[in-house]
Every structure is written in structure tokens, then in C-alpha cells.
């Protein structure tokens, strides 16, 4: 059986009396496998469901960003869709802002805003404003408030000036922003984002992440669950990440803390002499492990990635001894581990346990 890797996280906020906005308890979901007609005729009552979510428990508080990580088919989207009331759970309970997703789905839909669908879920021949006005009606906003809410939502995502433009003429980034604006219309308390920056270029993705953090978590105090494959999202945006594998939680904790516990402390050393004897001594002595070395910029400088034994506490000593031994170092900095590696390690550790 898989045992999740859990790192030290902040003390549970519930001890301070705060209730989670999302509480998933021992959730199970399995899907039937499509069978050929021949199979159905041969064994009409045979069922062989494939588990998609297995015994998942999770809490998300107001103002918190929780990242769902994991390979394709890990169960991230299924979990989000259960929360969005699009998929019925088999077992366990899912409570959103005090409402059960099965027994009180209508109330859940009033407080939750999923951004799961892609840009084709917009009316491309209508303007951004018209799209939002339509959804304002579907969200049952009072008639008198629709105009101001639509203006606000467009303003927040930076589309106010292009609100009257046809959506079909928008870039992928603008459409993504419009989907978020649509989600924000109803002033939701819980937001579900499925790879929100997948179609954005790095610059647009960066500004979009800043916007998400500032607007959703800080200003609106929404609880946000975000399924992502991007390192930056996991490390910069999320207060906590949950690594999923084959429907189970394989690891949970702060991304940086998880990274440290699973991958060690990684530092990049910018040097002119990647094979300097002092550097080799440090590695041979077991104070650090050499992960990679590659030339940077004009080819004279090299970045050597080290995993330092003893973590951050040992890093200053190591740097001191390298400089003292005459290693020419221009930069020495902590580097973020690749997300894929973190996920792989978390899954491997969880399976071994």
C-alpha cells in the first residue's frame, strides 16, 4: 500500500478555530472500463472499474493555494470534477463551504467556481462583455448588479479596454483571463483551476500567476485548488502541494520543504573551473553531490549543480571553504528542483513505504 510522504507544514489552522472551505474525507472514485460488444455479451454483469481517486483526504482553507501535482491519469482532474459536482463520488465525503457535493450540489455551485473547461467554452462570436453578461444571468446575479460585476471582473483581469471585442479575436492568454473573469463573477469562495497557464507564454504565465496570487488568495481570500504541471506554479504560487499517483496522495506539504526532504538542498555554483580540485575534494568527501554541470553564457562560465549534505545550514561553510581554496565563484545560489523529479521521487518514496 502507498503511504503518503508528509512534510512539516504549518500547524493545522483548524486548531485556531478556522474551518476549512474544502474538506475531502476518504474519497474514492472508480470508473467503469469501456468494453467491446463481444465482452459485454460474454459477461454482461462483469464489472472491472478502474480506480481514479483512492482514499484521498484533503483540506483547503480560505486564502490558501493548494497545488495538485502528478503525472497524467493521477486523479487530479477527477478530484477537481468531484468538487465541481460534475462527477459523483463512490465513497467518502466532500464538503465545500459547509455543503455536501452530493446531497446539496446546488448550494455548492453557488460558492464554487471551476475553471476546468477550455476556451471553446466561450461564445467566440460574442464580445467578452456579452459572454460575462450571459454567465451573470446563469449565476443568478441580481439584475441591477450585473453591469457593475461584469465591469469589475473585466477590470480585474485587465480586459476592460477590450471588453467589447469579439472573443474569437482574443489571444489564448486573453481567453484564459476571460475564463477566470467568468469564474470571479459570482464572488466564489472556492476556485478550481485546471492547468490555468497551459496556453500562455512564459511572460504572460508569470503575470497571470502574480494576478492569481494577489487577487484570489490575498484580496478575495478564496480557497484555490490548482492542478498543474508547472514548476513555477507549484513553488511560487502554492502554499501547499499534494502529489497524486494512481489516485492516491503520494506526498503532501510545502513544495520547497518537500523538495528539500525528497531531493535535498540544491545549489548552483557559477565558476570558471568546474573541475577545480577543491570542488572535486568536496564531492569526494561526501559534503556534496554533483548533479550536473553545464556551460553558461559565453562558454567560459559553468554552472555546477550540487546537492549539499546538511542542507541550507551547511551551505555557508561549503561556500567559504571553496572560496578559501581558490575556486573562482561568481554566483552561489539555491536552485529549484525540477517538478518532474520531485513528483517522481515522491511517488517512488511513497510506493517503497
Amino acid at each position, binding site marked *: 500500500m502507498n503511504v503518503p510522504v508528509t512534510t512539516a507544514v504549518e500547524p493545522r489552522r483548524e486548531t485556531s478555530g478556522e474551518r476549512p472551505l474544502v474538506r475531502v474525507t476518504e474519497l474514492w472514485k472508480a470508473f467503469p472500463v469501456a468494453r467491446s460488444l463481444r465482452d459485454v455479451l460474454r459477461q454482461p454483469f462483469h464489472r472491472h472499474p478502474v480506480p481514479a481517486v483512492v482514499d484521498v483526504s484533503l483540506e483547503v482553507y480560505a486564502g490558501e493555494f493548494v497545488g495538485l501535482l502528478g503525472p497524467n491519469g493521477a486523479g487530479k482532474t477527477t478530484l477537481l470534477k468531484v468538487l465541481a459536482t*460534475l*462527477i459523483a463520488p463512490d465513497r467518502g465525503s466532500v464538503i465545500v463551504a459547509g455543503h455536501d457535493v452530493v446531497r446539496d450540489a446546488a448550494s455548492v455551485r453557488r460558492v464554487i467556481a471551476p475553471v476546468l*473547461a477550455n476556451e471553446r467554452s466561450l461564445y467566440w462570436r460574442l464580445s467578452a462583455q*456579452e459572454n460575462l*453578461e450571459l454567465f451573470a444571468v446563469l449565476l443568478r446575479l441580481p439584475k441591477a448588479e450585473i453591469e457593475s460585476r461584469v465591469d469589475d471582473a473585466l477590470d480585474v483581469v485587465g480586459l476592460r479596454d477590450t471588453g467589447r471585442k469579439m472573443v474569437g479575436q482574443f489571444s489564448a492568454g486573453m481567453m484564459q483571463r476571460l475564463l477566470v473573469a467568468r469564474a470571479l463573477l459570482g464572488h466564489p469562495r472556492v476556485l478550481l483551476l485546471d492547468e490555468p497557464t497551459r496556453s500562455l507564454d512564459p511572460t504572460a504565465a508569470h503575470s497571470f500567476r502574480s494576478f492569481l496570487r494577489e487577487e484570489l488568495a490575498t484580496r478575495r481570500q478564496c480557497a484555490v485548488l490548482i492542478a498543474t504541471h508547472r514548476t513555477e506554479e507549484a513553488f511560487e504560487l502554492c502554499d501547499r502541494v499534494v502529489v497524486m499517483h494512481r489516485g492516491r496522495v503520494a506526498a503532501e506539504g510545502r513544495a520547497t520543504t518537500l523538495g528539500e526532504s525528497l531531493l535535498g538542498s540544491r545549489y548552483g555554483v557559477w565558476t570558471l573551473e568546474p573541475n577545480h580540485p577543491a570542488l572535486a575534494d568536496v564531492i569526494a568527501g561526501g559534503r556534496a553531490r554533483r548533479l550536473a554541470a553545464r556551460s553558461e553564457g559565453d562558454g567560459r562560465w559553468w554552472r555546477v549543480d550540487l546537492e549539499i549534505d546538511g542542507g541550507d545550514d551547511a551551505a555557508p561553510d561549503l561556500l567559504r571553504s571553496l572560496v578559501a581554496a581558490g575556486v573562482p565563484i561568481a554566483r552561489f545560489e539555491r536552485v529549484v528542483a525540477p517538478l518532474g523529479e520531485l513528483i517522481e521521487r515522491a511517488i517512488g518514496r511513497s510506493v517503497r513505504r
Partner: protein
Amino acid sequence: MSVRAVAALTHAAWRTAKSYRVSFVLSFASLAVTIIPVYFVATALQPFMATVIAEEGREYFAFVLLGTALLTLVATSLSSFAAAVSGGLSSGFFEALLVTPTPLSAILAGQTGYAFAWGLARVVLLLIAGAALGVDVHWDRAPEAVLVVLGVIAAHAGLGLVAAALVVSFRTNAGVPQGLLIVSTILGGVYFPTAALPPALVGLAEWLPLTPGLRALRQCLLLGYPLSVVAADVGRVLAGAAVWFAVGAAALRWAFGYARRAGSLSQY
């Protein structure tokens, strides 16, 4: 049901259709292509058809015109729900609608509202064109006609809901709307009265909701019969509407529950 939501979705579909200007204008022009050849062919066949259609009308053109008009609404009722669900599921739009607090009934009505409005507009235009070409309509029987038309729409909408339920459950309507439309066109008395069918098929034709509906509609509007004369056919239409609509609604409700359990409700 939220009337505001239905109106908003219908309005959005109307604005989308209107934005394709050329095809929007051509869709009106296609009505002329539908009606003018029918007029000349029907006029040519009038001497041969007069006695055959006597129970339902005097002029063959008027007979075919009403058949075509009602068939337009039958086609819309049979296909629009499945088309809306199928398109919405594959684009992800349906998923976005389902996570709003708007009830499913309002979403479906809104998603098909424009198709029905456009179908009704076509019928009205066909009738106006028919009147312009000399069709003698008993407008004083309009209330009876409206009742019959609503019954026929409801009965076929029920079958359309069954087709939509198949799409939700199995991602295919298994050709149900197309099959029913073909059968209704051939056996429902659209272009010729069911009495002209081989005896073995007459009984089958009478089971179709279109057959008594079309007969009652023609007798009211073309012969001026009051409700009391056509009561038996109207009763069958309304009973069929009640049964099929209930079956369709139940099938769709079951299908959505199944899809939520099977995880096939959202985009695939």
C-alpha cells in the same frame, strides 16, 4: 425553471447566428427554394390528388404546405436536444453551464430555444408565403391548431430528450432522431394521406405522434373543423405528448445521473 436564463441563452445563440450574416440571410432565402417548386409541383398534381386528400383538405399545395411546416417543427424537436448536448459536451461549454446554479431544465431549454424559435419563424413564414400564393386558411381555428402544434412538439421533444439521454450516456444518439424523422416523413402523412399507404403500414402510421396531429391540424386550418370533430386525434396527440415527454424527461434524468457516476458528463 429560470426564464431569465432561458432567454439569455436563446439570445446568445441568436446573436451568434446573426453574426454569420451571409448564412443568416441565406437561411431565409432557402425558404423560397423550399416553397416555390412545391407550389408548382402541387398545382400540377392537384387534379390527381384532390380526391385522395379530400378528408384533410381541398388543395394539394395547402396539404403539403402544412405537412412541410409541421415536419420542420418535428425535425427541430427530435434533433435539437441531442445536438445541443453533443456539441456542448465536446466543446466543454456544457460543463461550464452545469457548474452554475441554473437548473438543467433551463440550460436545455436555453440551449435549444433558438432552434425552436427559428423553427417557428420558418413555419410562420411558410404560412405567410402560402397565404400569398392563395392558400385558404381558416384562421378562426388557430387556437385548435396551436394546441395540436404544441402537442406534436411536446411528443417529439420527448423523443428528442431520449436521443439526448443516449448522447449523455453513450456519446451517440444511435441515429434515433434521424430514423424517427425518416419514418415520420414517410408514414406520417406529410406528402400524402396515410390512407394511401399499403394496409400493413396504416396501423403502424397511426402510432406515430405526427399522423393524428397532422390530420387534425389540416382539418382545423384547411377544412375549418371545430375541436369537437377532431377531438379524438387531438386527444391522441396530447396523450402521446404526455407519455413521451415524461419518458424523455425520465430518460434524461437517469442519463445525467449515470454520466455523473461514470464520469462521462464533462468534456472528453
